[in-house]
């Protein structure tokens, strides 16, 4: 495709801090290359704002290669923008044409309070992991990688679930602001492996209890999370989480870890 430049109008959410009420600000941006990433477009805008003596827009980013999950932006009604299986940093400006207006909002969920502008606090995810997203390993020499036989299919499924980067797009996209896809990915990648077995009976229950405590909504199987997840985490993981949950309720030996 031909390289081209464009002028855009950006409507971006500005919010001073957690407690202040936010509002939309409109910014014209000029001379954006179709080769730029969406975040590079924001860099251009921020440089322009700094040059004008204004405050730049705060947004989260880190790896800029689609693996860290930091770049949370809700773009024209879509988590990470309109591209499938893509984070904001991997969304490119060739998606847009000259004269477009783009509305950018932060993730919106009570459990992800806005810290500033587009930056939200996702530490609720960390606390869910702390509640059960771990395994017990003894210290000492590293065990030979091949000492534990694992079925190829299970290894693959576990790997696919482990691809979750904790970005929170599932919560942002879910009409209920539910974190089930995230939690299911974190439960699944451990539940499928023998290393995850010791805590198996308590993991799902503890993580689900923490998820509820953090104030996420409950899953009604709408599926917007799967449609928006940049890592293609499947709803089958939610089915597995449900099975793990039911399993630990029925197994009887499910005292708190």
């Amino acid at each position, binding site marked *: 495709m031909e390289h081209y430049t464009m002028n855009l109008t950006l*409507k971006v959410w500005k919010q001073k801090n957690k407690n202040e009420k*936010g509002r*939309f600000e409109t910014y014209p941006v000029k001379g954006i290359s179709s080769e730029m990433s969406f975040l590079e477009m924001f860099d251009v805008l921020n440089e322009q704002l700094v040059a004008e003596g204004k405050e730049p827009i705060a947004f989260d980013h880190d790896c800029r290669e689609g693996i860290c999950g930091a770049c949370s932006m*809700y773009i*024209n*009604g*879509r*988590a990470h923008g*309109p591209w499938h299986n893509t984070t904001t940093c991997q969304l490119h400006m060739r998606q847009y044409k000259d004269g477009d207006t783009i*509305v950018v*909002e932060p993730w*919106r*969920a*009570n*459990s992800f309070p806005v810290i500033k502008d587009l930056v939200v606090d996702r530490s609720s995810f960390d606390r869910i992991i702390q509640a059960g997203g771990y395994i017990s390993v003894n210290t000492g020499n590293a065990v030979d990688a091949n000492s534990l036989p694992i079925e190829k299919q299970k290894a693959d499924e576990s790997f696919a679930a482990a691809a979750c980067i904790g970005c929170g797009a599932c919560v942002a*996209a879910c*009409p*209920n*602001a*539910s974190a*089930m896809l995230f939690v299911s990915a974190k439960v699944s990648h451990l539940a499928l492996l023998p290393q995850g077995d010791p805590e198996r009976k308590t993991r799902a*229950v503890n993580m*689900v*209890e923490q*998820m*509820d405590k953090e*104030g*996420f*909504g*409950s*899953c*009604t*199987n*709408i*599926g*917007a999370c799967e*449609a*928006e997840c940049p890592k293609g985490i499947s*709803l*089958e993981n*939610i*089915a*597995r*989480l*449900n*099975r793990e*949950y*039911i399993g*630990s*309720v029925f197994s009887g030996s*499910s005292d708190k870890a």
Partner: protein
Amino acid sequence: MNWKNAFSTSIGKKLQMSLTGLFLILFLIVHCYINAQIFYNDGGVRFTEAAHFMGTNFVIRTIELGLFAFLILHVVQGLLLWAKNRARRGTRYAVSAGNQTSRWYSRSMALLGTLVLLFLILHLSKFWGPNRLSQTTGHGELDLFTMMRDEFQVTWIVIVYILGCIALGWHLLHGFYSAFQTLGLGTSKYKGLLKGIGVAFSIIVPIIFALMPISFYMGWIS
């Protein structure tokens, strides 16, 4: 985790919705089968026989109590979840994804369910209510077949019944598969099969139900 709070977490409530929903689906199957007896067009002989059994058998009448309990649980829990989940978003998005990432009926289960409930109240007040009242006051069973024939001559009633069936169909289109997904059966192995059965069920059963008032209205059944 014990039994008591197993059903009170978010997944626990989902299980409540799933299990009560599946029971209501079972009820739909039985109800549909019994009422479909009118299509024999035998002046209601077979239908009346089946309705008599359902209305007087002790076991069935006991299950009926359970059915109402489950129905109420399904409605109350569903509405509570809807209100809670709505509040979890906090500030609403200025631009939302709409149908790009999910189906409208999956997002509208509370609305569709409320429509089905309103229809159900009308429906019960027309047939089940008067019949049980007559039974408990010692006047015996009513002639439900004749009542159907009379009620379904009224245009607005037939229209409301058709709308009720449409709302039920959309509700089931999400609910049927969703119930199994909640039980953990949405795996690559069963997903396709369950979705297929769900779609077929959500279309066929409401159509059979809707054909009942339509058939009387059009005079196909006498």
